[in-house]
């Protein structure tokens, strides 16, 4: 043992090379793992945007408590989901749609004109599509900036009339 260590210590080049090799190998492994983690986290962020967007819309559907829900198209081409609500005798409509790379939400009095330029930005989203599968089942198809796709179904209780 002493002899081997003596040999290593006396030949400084060998010692330095050994230490450098250990650091290089460890750095390489850590670097590769870091890249992998970074990619996974990046993909997760994109997925999380979709999860958040679908969860947000789902929460609004549940909170609608049986109020009328329908699918629509703004200016004939942008798919939207419309949830009605009533306050002090006035009927309001909350529109959810994707425009300018954002999921947008806009609440207006029923009958008021709507355009995609209006609305509050909720979260980044490329497209959102809404389809009525039955009177009580809504399909939401969301596409993120990174082209990840999320298709989720939401149940709409039929006691409020379901999806119109």
């Amino acid at each position, binding site marked *: 043992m*002493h002899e081997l260590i003596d040999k290593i210590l006396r030949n400084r080049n060998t010692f330095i090379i050994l230490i450098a090799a250990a650091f290089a190998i460890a750095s390489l492994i*850590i670097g590769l793992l870091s890249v992998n983690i970074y990619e996974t986290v990046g993909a997760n962020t994109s997925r999380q945007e979709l999860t958040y967007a679908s969860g947000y819309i789902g929460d609004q559907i549940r909170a609608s408590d049986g109020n009328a829900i329908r699918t629509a198209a703004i200016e004939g081409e942008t798919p939207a989901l419309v949830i009605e609500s009533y306050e002090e005798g006035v009927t309001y409509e909350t529109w959810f749609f994707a425009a300018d790379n954002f999921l947008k939400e806009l609440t207006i009095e029923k009958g008021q004109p709507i355009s995609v330029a209006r609305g509050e930005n909720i979260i980044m989203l490329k497209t959102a599509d809404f389809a009525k599968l*039955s009177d009580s*089942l809504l399909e939401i198809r969301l596409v993120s900036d990174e082209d990840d796709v999320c298709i*989720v179904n939401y149940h709409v209780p*039929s006691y409020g009339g379901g999806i119109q």
Partner: protein
Amino acid sequence: MRSKSAKRTPTNRGATWGSVLRNFSFENITFQTMRTVTFVVASIFLLLAIVLAVNLFVSANQQADRASQLEQVISETASIAETLKSSNGDLGLAAQSLRNHTHYSLADNSLILFYDDTFQPSAESDATYRAVISAEAYPAYCAYTIRFSEIIAKRELYALEFKYLRGGGQ
């Protein structure tokens, strides 16, 4: 050089470690012994640090993969559960309502959906994951169980059990 080094080492002279410890005295410690001990200790610390750092990163990598996997599993399970709620206990209707699933296995009280490694719906032959859904219908409600698992590893990732009033109630 080798013989000089050997003379300074008790173990090289045929002494046992027990006798070395019994005869231990700070006066006997030579510069060379100190240097050797320092080198060994430093090397052990370096190796431990490297192993710990690599281990931490491997662990973080696994956690990130697992988090991503779990998030997708939960999202899919929630979507299946919402579909089941509107199917009123009819698994065939639920299977048709999950429009992106063109391949599924439907038996009396169970429905199996298949997913590839990116959690996209797939055929059974290409599937990495599967969701086994079972339903029990009672007069007033339906009881559902959804079990998401990895096919090859035979590892259950997530399970959800719930009951829902029949007829679209809350």
